[in-house]
């Protein structure tokens, strides 16, 4: 009788443990897949497709360049030089920035409007920026229900740097923020996305 009881206890422990483990795993899988899958729209897919095409083109161009070098110097094997590697990294950074913008723009467009939050936040931002960022100008500001999108111009590249440092510590921008530096050194501009407290920005995975 006793061995049967022990076997019963063992089966109960093992079954409970396995069920717990699989439940946990399932929950993790759901958490990982739910948000991104639901959020991917045609715009994001388009950007991602463009990125894939760019990478393919880059690979083809690199292959063609290597073939040229091999034809010119049959005895030597062509190796990618360091600047090429850095350029490739820069390109990836630019592509990633584009993807972030596309996803955040999509989140902004899909966001439901909350009139009271929108009006209150727009007033707060306009007032805070006017007081704290004298060398930057708020050109455009739109809030919806849980996200705001704004565009700034800066008097100089130095003013653009100062802008990022100051904005990071302003009460009006205390929740999650993404700043994209666009434009040129001569005419620097920034696009800023601000999430409502407790509402995360839809950042892509690396």
């Amino acid at each position, binding site marked *: 009788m006793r061995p049967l009881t022990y076997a019963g206890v063992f089966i109960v422990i093992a079954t409970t443990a396995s069920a*717990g483990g699989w439940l*946990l795993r399932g929950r993790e899988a759901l958490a990982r897949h739910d948000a991104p899958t639901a959020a991917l729209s045609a715009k994001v897919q388009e950007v991602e497709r463009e990125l894939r095409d760019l990478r393919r083109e880059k690979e083809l161009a690199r292959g063609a360049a290597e073939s040229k070098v091999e034809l010119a110097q049959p005895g030597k094997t062509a190796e990618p030089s360091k600047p090429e590697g850095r350029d490739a990294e820069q390109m*990836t950074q630019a592509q*990633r920035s584009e993807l972030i913008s596309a996803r955040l723009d999509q989140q902004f467009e899909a966001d439901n409007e909350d009139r009271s939050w929108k009006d209150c936040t727009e007033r707060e931002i306009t007032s805070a920026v006017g007081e704290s960022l004298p060398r930057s100008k708020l050109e455009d500001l739109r809030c919806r229900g849980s996200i705001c999108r704004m565009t700034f111009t800066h008097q100089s590249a130095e003013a653009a740097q100062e802008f990022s*440092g100051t904005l990071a510590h302003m009460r009006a921008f205390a929740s999650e923020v993404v700043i994209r530096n666009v434009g040129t050194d001569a005419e620097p501009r920034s696009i800023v996305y601000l999430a409502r407290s407790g509402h*995360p920005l839809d*950042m892509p995975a*690396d």
Partner: protein
Amino acid sequence: MKNHIRTSLVASALALPVFGAIPAHAVEDTVYPAIMCLEEGIDTGAFNRSEYRITRTGVGNGTGRLLCPIARMTCGTSYDSGFGDPVRATGFRAYVHTYRTENSGDLGCRLISKNYDGSTIHLGDTGFAPPGQNEMEIYTTSSCRSFYILSCTMPQNTSTTYAKIFAYQVRE
């Protein structure tokens, strides 16, 4: 009795790997002394460092902001679910060991990640140190193509109020 003990041990050993899946663990847990932090912009001498803390004195102007380096130790496989499949880390956490007195003014910190070319900057939620407590927790999403910084703004000390940062701890 012996059989009972043996059976219990075998059952526990078999169940452990499955229960072991519950606590996901961070692979990096690095503590930095606060004296690694530097004044943002041109150093005005507003901050006073010692072997155990950094604080903002009444001397100097500047922005009152500190930039503290964070070495990104890992990316992509920070957590293990216990089933052998790596799970991508979605964020990282910092604990700022600090102290400020009542009415000293805000001591706020946030985690910042920047693309290597500086073109995109991500700011996590700002955390504010409560008076009389010695730890502030902040969290942000992780990125495999960025570098990380902790940025804190500190109130200026007076004859009766003060704020200090002793250390900061990063869990990836």
